[in-house]
């Protein structure tokens, strides 16, 4: 089945220690998104890639970076995680050229704990 895969599902890191979260997709969608979902809060878009074009949300902290080496993979790098970065990170994909409205397909998320 075509899907959005996130690894790992649970990630524990130490305060200030860089961490990378991974997302891959078999849908061949050209757009990939990263959302941050803190406890009891709404998921919030951090940035997205349209093909190789990177689009950062204005209020995304500089501590968050992303890489998309190819269509299938997208990475979220947190350079110096703080306690406030503990959250669920959701990856999503979409295909705006598909002729239907731009549905976003989500992965299961990676829950990040910062000690």
């Amino acid at each position, binding site marked *: 089945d075509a899907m*959005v895969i996130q690894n790992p599902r649970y990630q524990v890191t130490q305060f200030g220690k860089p961490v990378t979260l991974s997302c891959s997709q078999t849908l061949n969608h050209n*757009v990939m*998104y990263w*959302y941050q979902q803190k406890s*009891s*809060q*709404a*998921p*919030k*878009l951090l940035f*997205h890639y*349209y093909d190789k074009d990177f*689009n950062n*949300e204005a209020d995304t902290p500089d501590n968050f970076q992303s890489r998309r080496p190819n269509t299938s993979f997208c990475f979220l790098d947190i350079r110096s995680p703080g306690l406030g970065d503990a959250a669920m990170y*959701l990856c999503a994909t*979409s295909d*705006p050229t598909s002729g239907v*409205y*731009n*549905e*976003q397909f*989500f*992965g*299961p*998320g990676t829950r990040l704990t910062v000690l």
Partner: protein
Amino acid sequence: AQTVTQSQPEMSVQEAETVTLSCTYDTSENNYYLFWYKQPPSRQMILVIRQEAYKQQNATENRFSVNFQKAAKSFSLKISDSQLGDTAMYFCAFMKGWGTDKLIFGTGTRLQVFP
């Protein structure tokens, strides 16, 4: 800026009964999309139902239907014949246009279906 408000943090319903989840939003856009997403425990977010703002007819998908009141900026979800598998977090979301526009989520309603 667009906002989405879900005023019911938690709801419960007995199996086979009907439950309605509330959502209001604020926007100055005339063309937009509204969505209800379901996030079961430890599983990925999936789309339940969508509504195009230009359509007056309320969307329906099997046991799920919406009451879309554009003037009131209200978008409630009705789940009929509730099933145990409906237990999940439900997010109302707004997208202002087409293409790579981001989803703006509400804070969610946790629905528990009891036998």
